[in-house]
Protein backbone atom coordinates (compact mmCIF):
# COMPACT_ATOMS: atom_id res chain seq x y z
CA UNK A 1 0.00 0.00 0.00
CA UNK A 2 1.37 3.37 -0.89
CA UNK A 3 1.02 6.07 1.74
CA UNK A 4 0.62 9.67 0.74
CA UNK A 5 1.56 11.71 3.81
CA UNK A 6 0.24 14.95 2.34
CA UNK A 7 -3.23 13.51 1.73
CA UNK A 8 -3.15 12.03 5.21
CA UNK A 9 -2.33 15.21 7.08
CA UNK A 10 -5.08 17.04 5.27
CA UNK A 11 -7.53 14.96 7.31
CA UNK A 12 -5.77 15.55 10.61
CA UNK A 13 -7.22 18.25 12.90
CA UNK A 14 -3.81 18.84 14.46
CA UNK A 15 -2.15 19.49 11.11
CA UNK A 16 -4.99 21.78 10.13
CA UNK A 17 -4.52 23.80 13.28
CA UNK A 18 -0.78 24.05 12.66
CA UNK A 19 -1.35 25.15 9.07
CA UNK A 20 -3.93 27.69 10.19
CA UNK A 21 -1.55 29.23 12.76
CA UNK A 22 1.34 29.37 10.29
CA UNK A 23 -0.86 30.85 7.59
CA UNK A 24 -2.04 33.57 9.98
CA UNK A 25 1.53 34.43 10.98
CA UNK A 26 2.67 34.46 7.35
CA UNK A 27 -0.17 36.80 6.40
CA UNK A 28 0.82 39.08 9.28
CA UNK A 29 4.38 39.13 8.02
CA UNK A 30 3.41 39.58 4.39
CA UNK A 31 0.89 42.40 4.87
CA UNK A 32 2.69 44.10 7.76
CA UNK A 33 2.74 47.54 6.06
CA UNK A 34 -1.03 47.40 5.46
CA UNK A 35 -1.95 46.30 8.98
CA UNK A 36 -0.54 49.31 10.76
CA UNK A 37 -0.27 52.98 9.97
CA UNK A 38 3.16 53.26 11.63
CA UNK A 39 6.59 52.24 10.47
CA UNK A 40 8.51 49.95 12.87
CA UNK A 41 11.24 52.53 13.36
CA UNK A 42 8.95 55.52 13.99
CA UNK A 43 9.16 57.22 17.34
CA UNK A 44 5.68 58.32 18.41
CA UNK A 45 6.89 60.50 21.25
CA UNK A 46 4.71 58.73 23.83
CA UNK A 47 6.46 56.11 25.96
CA UNK A 48 4.71 53.24 27.75
CA UNK A 49 1.28 54.29 26.51
CA UNK A 50 -1.36 51.61 27.18
CA UNK A 51 -3.27 50.06 24.24
CA UNK A 52 -5.78 52.34 22.51
CA UNK A 53 -7.32 52.74 19.04
CA UNK A 54 -4.16 54.28 17.65
CA UNK A 55 -1.71 51.79 19.14
CA UNK A 56 -3.42 48.37 19.50
CA UNK A 57 -0.63 47.16 21.81
CA UNK A 58 0.57 50.49 23.16
CA UNK A 59 4.12 51.79 22.89
CA UNK A 60 7.40 50.62 24.36
CA UNK A 61 10.14 52.26 26.41
CA UNK A 62 11.37 54.43 23.55
CA UNK A 63 7.91 55.21 22.20
CA UNK A 64 7.76 52.76 19.29
CA UNK A 65 4.44 51.15 18.36
CA UNK A 66 4.51 47.56 19.66
CA UNK A 67 1.92 46.15 17.23
CA UNK A 68 3.87 47.16 14.14
CA UNK A 69 7.10 45.80 15.61
CA UNK A 70 5.28 42.54 16.33
CA UNK A 71 4.24 42.35 12.65
CA UNK A 72 7.75 43.00 11.37
CA UNK A 73 9.19 40.59 13.93
CA UNK A 74 7.18 37.84 12.23
CA UNK A 75 9.12 38.54 9.04
CA UNK A 76 12.45 37.97 10.77
CA UNK A 77 11.29 34.71 12.36
CA UNK A 78 9.92 33.36 9.08
CA UNK A 79 12.98 34.39 7.07
CA UNK A 80 15.28 32.70 9.56
CA UNK A 81 13.05 29.61 9.64
CA UNK A 82 12.95 29.29 5.85
CA UNK A 83 16.62 29.99 5.23
CA UNK A 84 17.85 27.63 7.94
CA UNK A 85 15.44 24.90 6.84
CA UNK A 86 16.81 25.05 3.30
CA UNK A 87 20.52 25.33 4.12
CA UNK A 88 20.50 22.87 6.97
CA UNK A 89 18.44 20.18 5.24
CA UNK A 90 20.60 20.45 2.12
CA UNK A 91 23.67 19.86 4.26
CA UNK A 92 21.96 16.97 6.07
CA UNK A 93 20.96 15.38 2.80
CA UNK A 94 24.36 15.79 1.17
CA UNK A 95 26.42 14.59 4.11
CA UNK A 96 24.02 11.90 5.35
CA UNK A 97 23.49 10.38 1.91
CA UNK A 98 27.13 10.48 0.85
CA UNK A 99 28.17 8.94 4.18
CA UNK A 100 25.81 6.04 3.63
CA UNK A 101 26.68 5.57 -0.05
CA UNK A 102 30.47 5.98 0.14
CA UNK A 103 31.06 4.30 3.50
CA UNK A 104 34.51 3.45 4.83
CA UNK A 105 36.68 6.04 6.53
CA UNK A 106 34.62 8.91 5.12
CA UNK A 107 31.47 7.56 6.75
CA UNK A 108 33.20 7.02 10.10
CA UNK A 109 34.62 10.52 10.00
CA UNK A 110 31.18 12.03 9.19
CA UNK A 111 29.50 10.10 11.98
CA UNK A 112 32.09 11.10 14.58
CA UNK A 113 31.78 14.74 13.50
CA UNK A 114 28.00 14.52 13.75
CA UNK A 115 28.26 13.09 17.28
CA UNK A 116 30.73 15.80 18.21
CA UNK A 117 28.60 18.67 16.95
CA UNK A 118 25.46 17.35 18.62
CA UNK A 119 27.26 17.18 21.96
CA UNK A 120 28.33 20.84 21.81
CA UNK A 121 26.20 23.36 23.69
CA UNK A 122 25.07 25.16 20.53
CA UNK A 123 23.72 28.31 22.18
CA UNK A 124 27.01 29.06 23.92
CA UNK A 125 28.99 28.33 20.74
CA UNK A 126 26.79 30.72 18.79
CA UNK A 127 27.10 33.42 21.44
CA UNK A 128 30.89 33.24 21.33
CA UNK A 129 31.15 33.25 17.53
CA UNK A 130 28.60 36.05 17.24
CA UNK A 131 30.54 38.04 19.83
CA UNK A 132 33.74 37.78 17.78
CA UNK A 133 32.16 38.39 14.38
CA UNK A 134 29.44 40.95 15.28
CA UNK A 135 25.95 39.46 14.98
CA UNK A 136 24.14 39.97 11.69
CA UNK A 137 21.07 38.14 10.40
CA UNK A 138 23.10 36.35 7.72
CA UNK A 139 25.69 35.20 10.25
CA UNK A 140 22.97 33.93 12.60
CA UNK A 141 21.34 31.96 9.78
CA UNK A 142 24.66 30.38 8.81
CA UNK A 143 25.56 29.60 12.43
CA UNK A 144 22.20 28.02 13.21
CA UNK A 145 22.43 25.93 10.03
CA UNK A 146 25.99 24.88 10.80
CA UNK A 147 24.92 23.59 14.19
CA UNK A 148 21.62 21.96 13.23
CA UNK A 149 22.42 19.80 10.18
CA UNK A 150 23.86 16.82 12.12
CA UNK A 151 20.55 15.59 13.54
CA UNK A 152 19.04 15.40 10.08
CA UNK A 153 22.18 13.91 8.53
CA UNK A 154 22.02 11.02 11.00
CA UNK A 155 18.40 10.29 10.02
CA UNK A 156 19.15 10.51 6.28
CA UNK A 157 22.14 8.20 6.62
CA UNK A 158 20.23 5.47 8.42
CA UNK A 159 17.40 5.75 5.93
CA UNK A 160 19.70 5.54 2.91
CA UNK A 161 21.52 2.60 4.49
CA UNK A 162 18.29 0.63 4.76
CA UNK A 163 17.05 1.76 1.33
CA UNK A 164 20.30 0.60 -0.26
CA UNK A 165 19.58 -2.99 0.74
CA UNK A 166 15.96 -3.11 -0.45
CA UNK A 167 15.02 -5.62 -3.12
CA UNK A 168 13.85 -3.12 -5.73
CA UNK A 169 17.21 -1.39 -5.69
CA UNK A 170 19.09 -4.66 -6.05
CA UNK A 171 16.71 -5.48 -8.88
CA UNK A 172 17.44 -2.16 -10.59
CA UNK A 173 21.14 -2.83 -10.22
CA UNK A 174 20.86 -6.25 -11.86
CA UNK A 175 19.13 -4.58 -14.79
CA UNK A 176 22.24 -2.46 -15.17
CA UNK A 177 21.04 0.80 -13.63
CA UNK A 178 23.84 3.25 -12.94
CA UNK A 179 24.55 4.85 -9.56
CA UNK A 180 23.11 8.18 -10.66
CA UNK A 181 19.91 6.55 -11.92
CA UNK A 182 19.42 4.65 -8.68
CA UNK A 183 19.98 7.77 -6.60
CA UNK A 184 17.65 10.03 -8.59
CA UNK A 185 14.80 7.63 -9.28
CA UNK A 186 14.85 5.25 -6.32
CA UNK A 187 16.51 6.88 -3.34
CA UNK A 188 15.65 10.59 -3.51
CA UNK A 189 11.87 10.16 -3.99
CA UNK A 190 11.72 7.77 -1.04
CA UNK A 191 13.54 10.32 1.09
CA UNK A 192 11.19 13.21 0.33
CA UNK A 193 8.83 12.72 3.33
CA UNK A 194 11.83 12.55 5.64
CA UNK A 195 13.31 15.66 4.12
CA UNK A 196 10.01 17.47 4.67
CA UNK A 197 9.88 16.55 8.33
CA UNK A 198 13.56 17.37 8.70
CA UNK A 199 12.94 20.85 7.30
CA UNK A 200 10.15 21.43 9.79
CA UNK A 201 12.41 20.33 12.63
CA UNK A 202 15.13 22.69 11.43
CA UNK A 203 12.68 25.56 10.99
CA UNK A 204 11.37 25.13 14.51
CA UNK A 205 14.84 25.03 15.97
CA UNK A 206 15.85 28.08 13.95
CA UNK A 207 12.91 30.18 15.16
CA UNK A 208 13.66 29.18 18.73
CA UNK A 209 17.41 29.77 18.43
CA UNK A 210 17.06 33.17 16.79
CA UNK A 211 14.56 34.32 19.41
CA UNK A 212 16.58 32.77 22.22
CA UNK A 213 19.82 34.43 21.17
CA UNK A 214 18.06 37.77 20.77
CA UNK A 215 16.48 37.24 24.20
CA UNK A 216 20.01 36.88 25.56
CA UNK A 217 21.01 40.12 23.85
CA UNK A 218 22.76 38.61 20.81
CA UNK A 219 21.02 39.96 17.71
CA UNK A 220 21.48 42.02 14.58
CA UNK A 221 21.06 45.62 15.77
CA UNK A 222 19.21 46.57 12.58
CA UNK A 223 16.67 43.74 12.64
CA UNK A 224 13.39 43.71 14.55
CA UNK A 225 13.00 40.40 16.32
CA UNK A 226 10.55 38.96 18.83
CA UNK A 227 13.38 37.75 21.01
CA UNK A 228 14.90 41.20 21.12
CA UNK A 229 11.51 42.75 22.01
CA UNK A 230 11.21 40.31 24.92
CA UNK A 231 14.78 41.07 25.96
CA UNK A 232 13.95 44.77 26.11
CA UNK A 233 10.62 44.17 27.85
CA UNK A 234 12.20 42.01 30.58
CA UNK A 235 13.80 45.12 32.03
CA UNK A 236 10.38 46.61 32.82
CA UNK A 237 8.51 43.82 34.60
CA UNK A 238 7.90 46.16 37.53
CA UNK A 239 5.59 48.29 35.33
CA UNK A 240 2.30 47.18 33.82
CA UNK A 241 3.75 47.29 30.30
CA UNK A 242 4.46 43.54 30.26
CA UNK A 243 0.75 42.92 29.69
CA UNK A 244 0.88 44.40 26.19
CA UNK A 245 4.58 44.20 25.44
CA UNK A 246 6.14 41.03 26.85
CA UNK A 247 3.15 38.68 26.86
CA UNK A 248 1.78 39.24 23.31
CA UNK A 249 5.28 38.96 21.85
CA UNK A 250 5.89 35.75 23.76
CA UNK A 251 2.58 34.31 22.60
CA UNK A 252 3.32 35.23 18.97
CA UNK A 253 6.62 33.37 19.22
CA UNK A 254 4.99 30.40 20.97
CA UNK A 255 2.21 30.26 18.38
CA UNK A 256 4.75 30.06 15.57
CA UNK A 257 6.64 27.28 17.33
CA UNK A 258 3.44 25.39 18.17
CA UNK A 259 2.21 25.74 14.58
CA UNK A 260 5.40 24.16 13.23
CA UNK A 261 5.40 21.43 15.91
CA UNK A 262 1.80 20.43 15.27
CA UNK A 263 2.40 20.18 11.56
CA UNK A 264 5.54 18.09 12.01
CA UNK A 265 3.97 15.85 14.70
CA UNK A 266 1.16 14.98 12.37
CA UNK A 267 3.52 14.48 9.44
CA UNK A 268 5.60 12.12 11.56
CA UNK A 269 2.51 10.23 12.64
CA UNK A 270 1.48 9.93 9.00
CA UNK A 271 4.87 8.50 8.05
CA UNK A 272 5.73 6.20 10.94
CA UNK A 273 3.57 3.09 10.63
CA UNK A 274 3.87 2.35 14.35
CA UNK A 275 2.52 5.77 15.25
CA UNK A 276 -0.07 5.65 12.48
CA UNK A 277 -2.36 3.28 14.30
CA UNK A 278 -3.62 6.15 16.40
CA UNK A 279 -0.91 5.77 19.02
CA UNK A 280 -0.04 9.40 19.24
CA UNK A 281 -2.86 11.04 17.45
CA UNK A 282 -5.71 12.17 19.66
Amino acid at each position, binding site marked *: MHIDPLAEIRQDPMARMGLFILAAISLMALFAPLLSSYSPNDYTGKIFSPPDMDHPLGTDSVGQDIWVRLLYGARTSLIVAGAVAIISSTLSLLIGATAALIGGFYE*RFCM*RTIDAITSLPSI*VVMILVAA*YLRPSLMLLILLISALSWPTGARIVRSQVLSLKERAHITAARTFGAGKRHIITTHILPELSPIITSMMMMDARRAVFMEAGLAF*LGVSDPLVISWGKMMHQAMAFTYLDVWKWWLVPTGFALSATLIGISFLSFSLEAAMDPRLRKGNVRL
Partner: protein
Amino acid sequence: MINPREAECSISIEGRRGNGHSFWRAMALIAKAWSGNAARYIPARLQSYLIALAAIFSLNFILPRLMPGDPLHAIYGDVALVAMTDEMQAHLIRQLSLDKSWWDQMQAYLLGLFHGDLGFSYYYRDQVSQVILAAMPWTVLLAGLALVIATLIGIILGIESGYNRGSPFDRGMVASLMFLSGFPDFFVGVLLLLIFAVSLDVLPLSGATSAYAGYHGLSYVADVLRHLALPLAAMVLVQLGDVFLLTRNTVVTLLGESFILTARAKGCPERLIKYAHAGRNALLPVTTATGMRIPHLITRVLFIEIVFSYPGIGSLLNTAISARDYPLIQGILLVVTLTVLSVNLLVDLLYMRLDPRVRYAH
Protein backbone atom coordinates in the same frame (compact mmCIF):
# COMPACT_ATOMS: atom_id res chain seq x y z
CA MET B 1 41.01 48.20 35.49
CA ILE B 2 42.84 45.00 36.14
CA ASN B 3 45.01 44.81 39.16
CA PRO B 4 48.37 43.53 37.85
CA ARG B 5 49.05 41.77 41.14
CA GLU B 6 45.95 39.65 40.75
CA ALA B 7 46.92 38.74 37.21
CA GLU B 8 50.30 37.64 38.53
CA CYS B 9 48.51 34.86 40.38
CA SER B 10 48.46 32.94 37.13
CA ILE B 11 51.53 30.99 36.15
CA SER B 12 54.46 33.07 35.06
CA ILE B 13 56.08 32.60 31.68
CA GLU B 14 59.24 31.18 33.29
CA GLY B 15 57.22 28.41 34.89
CA ARG B 16 55.90 27.50 31.48
CA ARG B 17 59.28 27.25 29.89
CA GLY B 18 60.38 24.94 32.64
CA ASN B 19 57.56 22.59 31.73
CA GLY B 20 58.34 22.74 28.05
CA HIS B 21 60.07 19.38 27.93
CA SER B 22 57.29 17.38 29.54
CA PHE B 23 54.78 19.13 27.31
CA TRP B 24 56.50 18.06 24.10
CA ARG B 25 57.04 14.58 25.46
CA ALA B 26 53.32 14.30 26.11
CA MET B 27 52.55 15.62 22.62
CA ALA B 28 54.92 13.10 21.05
CA LEU B 29 53.29 10.27 23.03
CA ILE B 30 49.85 11.33 21.87
CA ALA B 31 51.05 11.56 18.25
CA LYS B 32 52.64 8.11 18.49
CA ALA B 33 49.51 6.58 19.97
CA TRP B 34 47.44 8.20 17.26
CA SER B 35 49.59 7.12 14.33
CA GLY B 36 49.57 3.47 15.49
CA ASN B 37 46.12 2.99 14.02
CA ALA B 38 44.58 4.37 17.18
CA ALA B 39 41.22 4.62 15.50
CA ARG B 40 40.84 0.88 16.07
CA TYR B 41 41.60 1.02 19.78
CA ILE B 42 39.80 4.21 20.74
CA PRO B 43 36.06 3.62 20.90
CA ALA B 44 33.85 5.62 18.58
CA ARG B 45 32.38 7.73 21.36
CA LEU B 46 35.79 8.86 22.56
CA GLN B 47 36.74 9.85 19.04
CA SER B 48 33.75 12.14 18.78
CA TYR B 49 34.54 13.61 22.19
CA LEU B 50 38.03 14.41 20.91
CA ILE B 51 36.55 16.10 17.84
CA ALA B 52 34.24 18.14 20.07
CA LEU B 53 37.19 19.23 22.20
CA ALA B 54 39.12 20.16 19.07
CA ALA B 55 36.17 22.28 17.94
CA ILE B 56 36.07 24.13 21.26
CA PHE B 57 39.82 24.57 21.11
CA SER B 58 39.60 26.14 17.69
CA LEU B 59 36.78 28.44 18.82
CA ASN B 60 38.65 29.58 21.91
CA PHE B 61 42.19 29.63 20.56
CA ILE B 62 42.24 29.90 16.77
CA LEU B 63 39.24 32.10 16.02
CA PRO B 64 40.29 35.17 18.04
CA ARG B 65 43.79 34.90 16.55
CA LEU B 66 42.39 34.79 13.01
CA MET B 67 40.49 38.02 13.52
CA PRO B 68 41.86 41.04 11.67
CA GLY B 69 43.85 43.41 13.81
CA ASP B 70 45.48 43.02 17.17
CA PRO B 71 45.00 39.51 18.66
CA LEU B 72 44.85 40.85 22.21
CA HIS B 73 42.01 43.04 21.02
CA ALA B 74 40.13 40.02 19.72
CA ILE B 75 40.76 37.89 22.80
CA TYR B 76 39.76 40.48 25.37
CA GLY B 77 37.32 42.65 23.38
CA ASP B 78 37.15 46.43 23.02
CA VAL B 79 35.68 47.25 26.39
CA ALA B 80 38.28 45.39 28.42
CA LEU B 81 41.15 46.86 26.48
CA VAL B 82 40.06 50.44 27.05
CA ALA B 83 40.10 49.76 30.77
CA MET B 84 43.64 48.28 30.69
CA THR B 85 46.85 50.12 31.32
CA ASP B 86 49.78 49.74 28.94
CA GLU B 87 51.75 47.61 31.42
CA MET B 88 48.74 45.36 31.82
CA GLN B 89 48.54 44.87 28.03
CA ALA B 90 52.25 44.21 27.81
CA HIS B 91 51.95 41.70 30.61
CA LEU B 92 49.11 39.87 28.89
CA ILE B 93 50.96 39.80 25.57
CA ARG B 94 53.91 38.22 27.37
CA GLN B 95 51.68 35.80 29.29
CA LEU B 96 49.86 34.60 26.17
CA SER B 97 53.11 34.63 24.10
CA LEU B 98 51.26 36.78 21.56
CA ASP B 99 54.55 38.22 20.31
CA LYS B 100 55.83 34.71 19.51
CA SER B 101 55.01 32.03 16.97
CA TRP B 102 51.72 30.12 16.89
CA TRP B 103 53.40 27.07 18.39
CA ASP B 104 54.56 29.04 21.39
CA GLN B 105 51.12 30.59 21.74
CA MET B 106 49.46 27.19 21.63
CA GLN B 107 51.90 25.81 24.16
CA ALA B 108 51.20 28.74 26.47
CA TYR B 109 47.46 28.35 26.00
CA LEU B 110 47.32 24.59 26.56
CA LEU B 111 49.63 24.68 29.56
CA GLY B 112 47.48 27.42 31.04
CA LEU B 113 44.43 25.20 30.57
CA PHE B 114 46.14 22.22 32.23
CA HIS B 115 46.82 24.44 35.22
CA GLY B 116 43.19 25.51 35.33
CA ASP B 117 43.95 29.00 34.01
CA LEU B 118 41.00 30.08 31.86
CA GLY B 119 42.05 33.69 31.60
CA PHE B 120 41.13 36.81 33.52
CA SER B 121 37.63 38.26 33.72
CA TYR B 122 38.03 42.01 33.67
CA TYR B 123 34.40 42.53 34.68
CA TYR B 124 34.60 40.48 37.88
CA ARG B 125 38.29 41.29 38.36
CA ASP B 126 39.07 37.70 39.16
CA GLN B 127 40.29 34.53 37.49
CA VAL B 128 37.61 33.16 35.14
CA SER B 129 37.93 29.73 36.77
CA GLN B 130 37.17 31.24 40.19
CA VAL B 131 34.17 33.17 38.89
CA ILE B 132 32.75 30.04 37.23
CA LEU B 133 33.39 27.84 40.27
CA ALA B 134 31.50 30.28 42.46
CA ALA B 135 28.44 30.18 40.18
CA MET B 136 28.55 26.45 39.53
CA PRO B 137 26.80 25.12 42.70
CA TRP B 138 23.59 27.03 41.97
CA THR B 139 23.42 25.73 38.40
CA VAL B 140 24.14 22.17 39.49
CA LEU B 141 21.47 22.41 42.20
CA LEU B 142 18.84 23.75 39.81
CA ALA B 143 19.65 21.53 36.81
CA GLY B 144 20.24 18.36 38.84
CA LEU B 145 17.05 18.64 40.89
CA ALA B 146 15.04 19.52 37.79
CA LEU B 147 16.46 16.57 35.83
CA VAL B 148 15.66 14.08 38.60
CA ILE B 149 12.16 15.42 39.32
CA ALA B 150 11.17 15.80 35.65
CA THR B 151 12.47 12.32 34.76
CA LEU B 152 10.69 10.65 37.70
CA ILE B 153 7.36 12.40 37.12
CA GLY B 154 7.67 11.93 33.36
CA ILE B 155 8.32 8.18 33.63
CA ILE B 156 5.47 7.56 36.07
CA LEU B 157 2.98 9.66 34.09
CA GLY B 158 4.22 8.10 30.85
CA ILE B 159 3.76 4.53 32.09
CA GLU B 160 0.29 5.28 33.46
CA SER B 161 -0.71 7.10 30.30
CA GLY B 162 0.71 4.53 27.89
CA TYR B 163 -0.81 1.63 29.79
CA ASN B 164 -4.25 3.23 29.60
CA ARG B 165 -3.90 4.40 26.04
CA GLY B 166 -6.97 6.21 24.74
CA SER B 167 -8.43 6.92 28.20
CA PRO B 168 -9.48 10.48 29.03
CA PHE B 169 -6.40 10.75 31.31
CA ASP B 170 -4.11 9.73 28.46
CA ARG B 171 -5.69 12.06 25.93
CA GLY B 172 -5.62 14.98 28.34
CA MET B 173 -1.98 14.40 29.27
CA VAL B 174 -0.81 14.02 25.67
CA ALA B 175 -2.68 17.09 24.49
CA SER B 176 -1.59 19.35 27.34
CA LEU B 177 2.06 18.27 27.39
CA MET B 178 2.36 18.50 23.61
CA PHE B 179 0.91 21.99 23.77
CA LEU B 180 3.26 22.93 26.60
CA SER B 181 6.32 21.61 24.79
CA GLY B 182 5.54 24.03 21.97
CA PHE B 183 6.32 27.01 24.18
CA PRO B 184 9.92 28.25 24.17
CA ASP B 185 11.60 27.49 27.51
CA PHE B 186 12.31 31.04 28.45
CA PHE B 187 8.71 32.09 27.82
CA VAL B 188 7.45 29.37 30.20
CA GLY B 189 9.82 30.89 32.75
CA VAL B 190 8.63 34.40 31.95
CA LEU B 191 4.97 33.37 32.34
CA LEU B 192 5.61 31.71 35.73
CA LEU B 193 7.55 34.79 36.81
CA LEU B 194 4.76 37.13 35.73
CA ILE B 195 2.03 35.04 37.36
CA PHE B 196 3.61 34.09 40.68
CA ALA B 197 6.20 36.77 41.35
CA VAL B 198 4.80 39.86 39.63
CA SER B 199 0.99 39.53 39.73
CA LEU B 200 0.37 37.34 42.78
CA ASP B 201 3.60 38.36 44.50
CA VAL B 202 3.79 35.10 46.47
CA LEU B 203 7.32 34.08 45.50
CA PRO B 204 10.56 36.07 45.15
CA LEU B 205 11.22 37.75 41.80
CA SER B 206 14.92 37.00 41.45
CA GLY B 207 18.08 35.71 43.06
CA ALA B 208 18.83 32.56 45.05
CA THR B 209 18.79 33.98 48.57
CA SER B 210 17.47 37.11 50.27
CA ALA B 211 20.28 39.61 50.47
CA TYR B 212 21.32 40.83 53.94
CA ALA B 213 18.58 38.76 55.60
CA GLY B 214 21.14 36.97 57.76
CA TYR B 215 19.27 33.67 57.79
CA HIS B 216 20.91 30.66 59.42
CA GLY B 217 20.16 26.97 59.58
CA LEU B 218 16.63 25.96 58.72
CA SER B 219 15.41 29.43 57.82
CA TYR B 220 18.31 29.68 55.33
CA VAL B 221 17.27 26.39 53.72
CA ALA B 222 13.67 27.60 53.57
CA ASP B 223 14.81 30.83 51.95
CA VAL B 224 16.86 28.95 49.34
CA LEU B 225 13.91 26.67 48.58
CA ARG B 226 11.54 29.61 48.23
CA HIS B 227 13.87 31.18 45.68
CA LEU B 228 14.36 27.84 43.95
CA ALA B 229 10.63 27.08 43.59
CA LEU B 230 9.88 29.11 40.46
CA PRO B 231 13.00 28.32 38.39
CA LEU B 232 12.69 24.67 39.37
CA ALA B 233 9.02 24.55 38.40
CA ALA B 234 9.85 26.14 35.06
CA MET B 235 12.69 23.66 34.44
CA VAL B 236 10.49 20.66 35.32
CA LEU B 237 7.63 21.91 33.14
CA VAL B 238 9.77 22.42 30.05
CA GLN B 239 11.42 18.99 30.36
CA LEU B 240 8.36 16.97 31.33
CA GLY B 241 6.92 16.71 27.82
CA ASP B 242 9.97 14.97 26.33
CA VAL B 243 10.25 12.29 29.03
CA PHE B 244 6.52 11.75 29.14
CA LEU B 245 5.97 11.34 25.39
CA LEU B 246 8.97 9.04 25.00
CA THR B 247 8.01 6.79 27.93
CA ARG B 248 4.41 6.69 26.83
CA ASN B 249 5.18 5.79 23.22
CA THR B 250 7.69 3.15 24.31
CA VAL B 251 5.18 1.59 26.70
CA VAL B 252 2.52 1.62 23.98
CA THR B 253 4.80 -0.30 21.59
CA LEU B 254 5.98 -2.65 24.36
CA LEU B 255 2.40 -3.62 25.25
CA GLY B 256 2.14 -5.42 21.92
CA GLU B 257 5.18 -7.63 22.73
CA SER B 258 4.74 -11.28 23.57
CA PHE B 259 6.40 -11.11 26.98
CA ILE B 260 3.57 -8.87 28.15
CA LEU B 261 1.09 -11.44 26.90
CA THR B 262 3.03 -14.14 28.78
CA ALA B 263 2.98 -12.08 31.95
CA ARG B 264 -0.76 -11.57 31.60
CA ALA B 265 -1.29 -15.28 30.85
CA LYS B 266 0.56 -16.42 33.95
CA GLY B 267 -1.61 -14.10 36.03
CA CYS B 268 0.84 -11.36 36.90
CA PRO B 269 -0.75 -8.57 38.92
CA GLU B 270 -1.49 -5.46 36.87
CA ARG B 271 0.93 -3.27 38.80
CA LEU B 272 3.78 -5.68 38.19
CA ILE B 273 3.13 -5.81 34.44
CA LYS B 274 2.96 -2.06 34.32
CA TYR B 275 6.15 -1.28 36.21
CA ALA B 276 8.31 -4.42 36.22
CA HIS B 277 7.65 -5.59 32.67
CA ALA B 278 6.69 -2.59 30.55
CA GLY B 279 8.26 0.06 32.78
CA ARG B 280 11.63 -1.66 33.24
CA ASN B 281 12.03 -2.09 29.49
CA ALA B 282 10.95 1.47 28.82
CA LEU B 283 13.88 2.61 30.99
CA LEU B 284 16.40 1.82 28.24
CA PRO B 285 15.32 4.39 25.65
CA VAL B 286 14.56 6.85 28.44
CA THR B 287 18.13 6.57 29.77
CA THR B 288 19.64 7.10 26.34
CA ALA B 289 17.33 10.04 25.75
CA THR B 290 18.21 11.49 29.16
CA GLY B 291 21.87 11.42 28.19
CA MET B 292 21.13 13.00 24.86
CA ARG B 293 18.99 15.62 26.60
CA ILE B 294 21.83 16.86 28.78
CA PRO B 295 23.30 19.39 26.31
CA HIS B 296 19.75 20.61 25.88
CA LEU B 297 19.25 20.65 29.66
CA ILE B 298 22.25 22.93 30.06
CA THR B 299 20.96 25.33 27.41
CA ARG B 300 17.62 25.34 29.18
CA VAL B 301 19.06 26.00 32.58
CA LEU B 302 21.01 28.96 31.17
CA PHE B 303 17.81 30.53 29.84
CA ILE B 304 15.77 29.84 32.96
CA GLU B 305 18.51 31.26 35.20
CA ILE B 306 18.58 34.43 33.14
CA VAL B 307 14.80 34.84 33.36
CA PHE B 308 14.86 34.48 37.16
CA SER B 309 18.29 36.16 37.63
CA TYR B 310 19.34 32.97 39.40
CA PRO B 311 23.05 33.42 40.21
CA GLY B 312 24.40 30.42 38.26
CA ILE B 313 26.36 30.02 35.04
CA GLY B 314 23.45 31.35 32.97
CA SER B 315 23.35 34.69 34.72
CA LEU B 316 27.13 34.78 34.47
CA LEU B 317 26.83 34.28 30.72
CA ASN B 318 24.25 37.05 30.54
CA THR B 319 26.56 39.44 32.38
CA ALA B 320 29.48 38.37 30.19
CA ILE B 321 27.46 39.08 27.02
CA SER B 322 26.34 42.54 28.10
CA ALA B 323 29.78 43.45 29.51
CA ARG B 324 31.50 41.92 26.43
CA ASP B 325 33.75 39.94 28.76
CA TYR B 326 35.11 37.51 26.14
CA PRO B 327 37.43 35.42 28.33
CA LEU B 328 34.46 34.69 30.60
CA ILE B 329 32.31 33.55 27.63
CA GLN B 330 35.18 31.32 26.45
CA GLY B 331 35.60 29.86 29.92
CA ILE B 332 31.88 29.13 30.20
CA LEU B 333 31.91 27.44 26.80
CA LEU B 334 34.83 25.24 27.83
CA VAL B 335 33.38 24.30 31.22
CA VAL B 336 29.91 23.62 29.81
CA THR B 337 31.32 21.44 27.02
CA LEU B 338 33.53 19.46 29.38
CA THR B 339 30.53 18.89 31.66
CA VAL B 340 28.38 17.74 28.76
CA LEU B 341 31.05 15.36 27.47
CA SER B 342 31.76 13.78 30.84
CA VAL B 343 28.08 13.35 31.60
CA ASN B 344 27.64 11.72 28.18
CA LEU B 345 30.47 9.33 28.99
CA LEU B 346 28.81 8.45 32.30
CA VAL B 347 25.52 7.81 30.51
CA ASP B 348 27.29 5.49 28.06
CA LEU B 349 28.68 3.49 30.97
CA LEU B 350 25.34 3.47 32.77
CA TYR B 351 23.65 2.30 29.61
CA MET B 352 26.00 -0.67 29.44
CA ARG B 353 25.00 -1.63 32.97
CA LEU B 354 21.29 -1.23 32.29
CA ASP B 355 21.22 -3.22 29.07
CA PRO B 356 23.01 -6.57 29.39
CA ARG B 357 22.91 -6.99 25.61
CA VAL B 358 25.25 -4.02 25.16
CA ARG B 359 27.59 -5.31 27.89
CA TYR B 360 27.94 -8.80 26.43
CA ALA B 361 28.34 -7.49 22.93
CA HIS B 362 31.66 -5.87 23.85
